[in-house]
C-alpha cells in the first residue's frame, strides 16, 4: 500500500493523535501526516472530514475519513491484524474496552482540572487525579503492560496522555512517581519502546502549550 492512501490529520502535542501515531507504528504501516494548527485555524480538509466534532485526529483511508482516537486505534487493529492490540477472548476484549473507556472519562479531563482550577479546587482535582492513576495501577497489577507482555489497546490509549503529566505536576505541586510508583514504572517501560518515543512530544513542550492555554483561558 502506498503512503498516499493513508493520511493522518495530526497535531504534535495532541495525546489523541499520539495514540494513532503509535498504533500505526506498531503495525508497521506507512502514512502521510498533515500537521493541523488546531488553535490558529483549522484546515478546510479537517472541517470537511470531521464536520461533527471538527477535531484531530482524523484518519483518511483512500480519502474516506474516520474520527475519534480510540475508534481509530480499533480500526487500525482490525484493518492490519498483526500484531494484535486487543486480546483474542471476547471477555478480555470487553475488559480492555472498559478500561479504555475509563481512561477516556477520567484521565485528560481530570488532569485538565488541575491546571484550570484555582485555590482549594486544585487540591481536590489533584486528589481525584491521583485516585484515577491508582485505579489504573490496580488493573495493571504485576503485568509489564496493560496488554500483558506487549503494548496493547489500553497502553496505547494511556501512554500519550502521560506527556501532559509534567504540566499537571507543576500546577498541582506533586510528583506522579511519588504518589503512584508502579504507574511511573509502567511509563518508563513504555518509553523504552522506540515506537512510543518517536511518536510522542517532550513533556516540556506540552508544558509550554498548557501555559499558552492557561493564558487563553485568562489564568495568567
Amino acid at each position, binding site marked *: 500500500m502506498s503512503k498516499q492512501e493513508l493520511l493522518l490529520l495530526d497535531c504534535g502535542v495532541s495525546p489523541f493523535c499520539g495514540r494513532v501515531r503509535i498504533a500505526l507504528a506498531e503495525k508497521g504501516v506507512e502514512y502521510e501526516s498533515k500537521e493541523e494548527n488546531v488553535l490558529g485555524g483549522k484546515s478546510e480538509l479537517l472541517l470537511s472530514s470531521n464536520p*461533527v466534532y471538527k477535531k484531530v485526529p482524523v484518519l483518511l483511508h483512500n480519502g474516506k475519513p474516520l474520527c475519534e482516537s480510540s475508534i481509530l486505534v*480499533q480500526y487500525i487493529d482490525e484493518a492490519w491484524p498483526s500484531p494484535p492490540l486487543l486480546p483474542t477472548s471476547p471477555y478480555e476484549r470487553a475488559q480492555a474496552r472498559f478500561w479504555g473507556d475509563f481512561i477516556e472519562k477520567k484521565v485528560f479531563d481530570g488532569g485538565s482540572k488541575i491546571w484550570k482550577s484555582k485555590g482549594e479546587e486544585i487540591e481536590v482535582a489533584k486528589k481525584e487525579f491521583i485516585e484515577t492513576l491508582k485505579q489504573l495501577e490496580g488493573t495493571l497489577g504485576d503485568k509489564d503492560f496493560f496488554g500483558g507482555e506487549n503494548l496493547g489497546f489500553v497502553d496505547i490509549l494511556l501512554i500519550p496522555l502521560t506527556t501532559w503529566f509534567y504540566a499537571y505536576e507543576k500546577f498541582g505541586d506533586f510528583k506522579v512517581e511519588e504518589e503512584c510508583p508502579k504507574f511511573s514504572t509502567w511509563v518508563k517501560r513504555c518509553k523504552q519502546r522506540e515506537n512510543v518515543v518517536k511518536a510522542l512530544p517532550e513533556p516540556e513542550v506540552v508544558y509550554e502549550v498548557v501555559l499558552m492555554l492557561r493564558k487563553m483561558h485568562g489564568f495568567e
Partner: protein
Amino acid sequence: MADEIALLSTWPSMFGMRVRVALAEKGLKYEYREEDLRNKSPLLLLMNPVHKKIPVLIHNGKPISESMIIVEYIDEVWNHKSPLLPTDPFQRAQARFWADYVDKKLYDTAKKIIWSTKGEEQETGKKEFIECLKLLEGELGDDPYFGGENFGFVDVSLVTFSCWFHTFESYGNFSIETECPKLVAWTKRCLEKESVSSSLADPHKIHDFASGVRKRLGIE
C-alpha cells in the same frame, strides 16, 4: 454447559434496555435483576466496583459493564445469528463512531430538557437535542436502519431513547415527529421487531417515572 446470563439494570434505563435488545436479538435467556439505585445491591457493587452503575451483564459469573461494550461483547460471543456490527473494519469504525455520538451527546442534552430547573437551560437542551436527532436522521438517510438493510449496532444504541421521547416532548413542549419525521418513522419500524418491542419500557410509564423524579427534585 448452558450459559448463565444475568442482567443488573433498572426498568427506565435506556442504557439497560440496549442490553435487553441485544440479548433478545440473539435469542438468549437470562435472569433479570431490578436494581434500586438509591440502595445498590452488594452484587452490583461487587460486579461494577469502578462506576457502581447499571447495566452490568454477568456471564458465567464474570461481569461486563458499560452498555455498548456489553452489546459488542454479546455480538462477539453469540455470533451465530443477528450480527449487530458489520464485518468490514471501515463500516465497523463508522458504526462505533455514531454509537459513541449518541452516548456523548444525546443523554446530556436530553437531561437538560427534563431535569433542569432553569428555563434557559431547558431551551438550550431542547435545541441541542433536536440538532443531534437531525444529524442522526441525516446519517440514516434512506436506509431502513442505521445498519443498512439490517438492524444493527447504532440502531441498538439509539432506539432505546425512543420510549423517552414522549417525556422529552411533554416537558420540552415540542413534537419530535414534527422536527424529525424520518427518525420517528425509523423508531416505529424498529418497534415492529419483537426484540425491540419486548425490551423497551412503556412511554407512559416512563413519563410517570420522570414525573416522580421531578417531584423529588422539587421541579414539579
